[in-house]
């Protein structure tokens, strides 16, 4: 990455300005959404999309950093939801304490699961992640004393009866946004840390990373647990909002695939990619469901969308936009190199000088 101060051109400054403005505008729009929404239904769609975004960002801790694609993250969101409900109902805990408690429990549970599943890579890992959801679906359907079986489980509302539905939607929308912001902050912090660099080395070439001394297994396991924790928080938050749990929807491979699709579509390597993907996919899902109603056609639409993304845009929307910007960039329009040879010599000189200075000081 070229150092910012020496190579930044007017174009870059303008681009940064545009990005900043877009970010601020998007932030304002998100915060003002409950006031702008014309009715309670649109508001509830907003909460659903925010919930998808929280799930996708949580998924992206594993998917984005290590490149391990888990199709079974619904396991953790489902467990988070059931854990929250059971802690409220059986242990009589405060709803918010239950939410955090169940997320911590899921994080602890993710340790042995991660220990087993992270021993394999690629396709085997995907298979194991799918198997996990299928196991939990079977268990939650059969073990009806605890989970309510196929009848589902009612989750008590955290706000009193006097808080009306639109008001509930609004509060949960902000709660979800808060969760997303926290998860994004953690992702950003990891991205810039040594830990994050090690994880990205695993993504690029796990064997080489290991040979270079990166403790690959410990790193993978840590980020896996973090991801499970946030996914469980998002799942529990959704359960508190939605108010009822059904095994088929909680432990569904579809939900897990939504997370993958959203992150891939937005771009798994970028901070905001999963959020952008969640908005696009979440909106289209709701649109498909309302357009095709009871028929299974929304599955076809989802399948085709996923196939198109995988075939033609595997890096995501945000990187695709980035390369589009690069094409109109005035100074780099013709060269695929990041900088010209002359610039490189200049830069190396600068680096050499920078290195020499501290030596002189120490002498």
């Amino acid at each position, binding site marked *: 990455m070229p150092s910012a101060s020496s190579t930044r051109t007017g174009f870059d400054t303008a681009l940064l300005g545009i990005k900043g403005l877009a970010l601020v505008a998007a932030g304002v729009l998100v915060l003002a959404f409950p006031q702008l929404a014309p009715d309670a239904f649109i508001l509830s769609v907003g909460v659903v999309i925010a919930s998808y975004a929280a799930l996708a960002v949580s998924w992206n801790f594993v998917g984005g950093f290590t*490149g391990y*694609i888990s*199709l079974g993250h619904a396991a953790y969101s489902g467990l988070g939801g059931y854990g929250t409900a059971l802690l409220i109902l059986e242990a009589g805990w405060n709803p918010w304490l239950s939410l955090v408690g169940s997320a911590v429990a899921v994080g602890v549970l993710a340790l042995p699961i991660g220990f*087993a*599943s992270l*021993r*394999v*890579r*690629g*396709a*085997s890992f*995907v*298979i*194991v992640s*799918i*198997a*996990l959801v*299928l*196991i939990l679906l*079977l*268990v939650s*359907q*059969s073990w009806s004393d605890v989970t309510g079986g196929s009848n589902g489980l009612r989750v008590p509302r955290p706000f009193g009866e006097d808080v009306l539905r639109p008001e509930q939607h609004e509060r949960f929308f902000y709660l979800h946004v808060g969760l997303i912001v926290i998860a994004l902050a953690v992702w950003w912090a990891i991205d810039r840390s040594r830990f994050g660099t090690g994880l990205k080395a695993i993504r690029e070439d796990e064997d080489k990373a290991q040979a270079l001394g990166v403790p690959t297994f410990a790193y993978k396991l840590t980020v896996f647990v973090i991801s499970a924790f946030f996914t469980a928080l998002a799942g529990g938050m959704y359960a508190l909002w939605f108010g009822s749990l059904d095994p088929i929807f909680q432990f569904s*491979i*579809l939900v897990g*695939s939504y997370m*993958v699709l959203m992150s*891939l579509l937005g771009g798994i390597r970028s901070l905001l990619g999963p959020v952008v993907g969640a908005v696009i996919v979440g909106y289209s899902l709701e649109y498909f469901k309302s357009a095709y109603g009871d*028929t*299974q*056609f*929304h*599955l*076809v*639409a*989802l*399948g*085709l*969308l*996923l*196939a198109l993304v*995988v*075939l033609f845009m*595997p890096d995501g929307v945000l990187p695709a936009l980035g390369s589009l910007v690069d094409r109109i960039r005035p100074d780099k329009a013709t060269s695929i190199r990041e900088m010209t040879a002359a610039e490189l010599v200049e830069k190396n000189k600068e680096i050499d000088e920078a290195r020499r200075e501290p030596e002189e000081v120490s002498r």
Partner: protein
Amino acid sequence: MSGSLLLQSVILGLLLGGLYALLAAGLTLYFGVMRVVMIAHSAFLILAAYLAWWFQRETGLDPLLSLVVTVPLFFVVGFVMQRLLLARLRPATLTMMSVLLTFAIALTIEGLLGYVFSGTQRRIQLDYSGSSLEVFGANIAVVKLIAFGLAAVALLGLWALMKLTRFGQALRATIQHPEAARLLGINTDRIAGFGFGLGLATAAIGGTALSLDSTIYPSLHWHWIGPLMAIIVIGGLGSIPGAAIAAMLLGVSQSLLQVPLGTTWAQTVFYIALFATLMVRPQGFFGGRLAQRF
């Protein structure tokens, strides 16, 4: 558990294991030729079962006759799918992206089945649906025997094709070492396509066998893909004998556990075995060290 019940469970388990073995062999073929895990395999299985059911409803003929159409059809679909879709993916991320792409195909098939045939549960009614044979006090339904026979013949045919023909030799060479196979003048791209077609043909046979004695509905494929995936990982990705042995063992275990635990809990045996295998031998019991990397 009485002796005859035990015997019946073991026989039913073996019969079921035969079907699992055929389908797992198909999955192993895809993996062998392209290092692809084909999530849509069981969706095609259900599609074939629906086609058999639809064929029987429309013509009144035996559903087994639908094989004449579905097997070649699925072979061509598999070939086209490999050439047009999977071969387009970037080699660097092929394994991951192929999972997602085949997952997308599975969703599309499930959605289309639900759209065309509705979500209603379907079942083929035949004159011999209810008849059964009695062996040492164990009742074995005739349809299950036919399904097993179909799977066994198909597996044997596949084995003969792989071992005895020139095409099989080329296919095995492509699986073992694609570059060396290319140097010997084998058109590995086309062979990979044919390998895919063969794999999908096993789904056509398996689906027809399945339609004989089970109730089918569009989302049924999720109940099949989990056990099948577990089987190929336990057997070792890429190993057909490993997959067949794991299929038989797990089929029998599932069938035995069904008696005390019920069908739902018995299914978890696949996943418990899967996690146990990962703990003890992540590359599976018959796969080489290579299998762990996929």
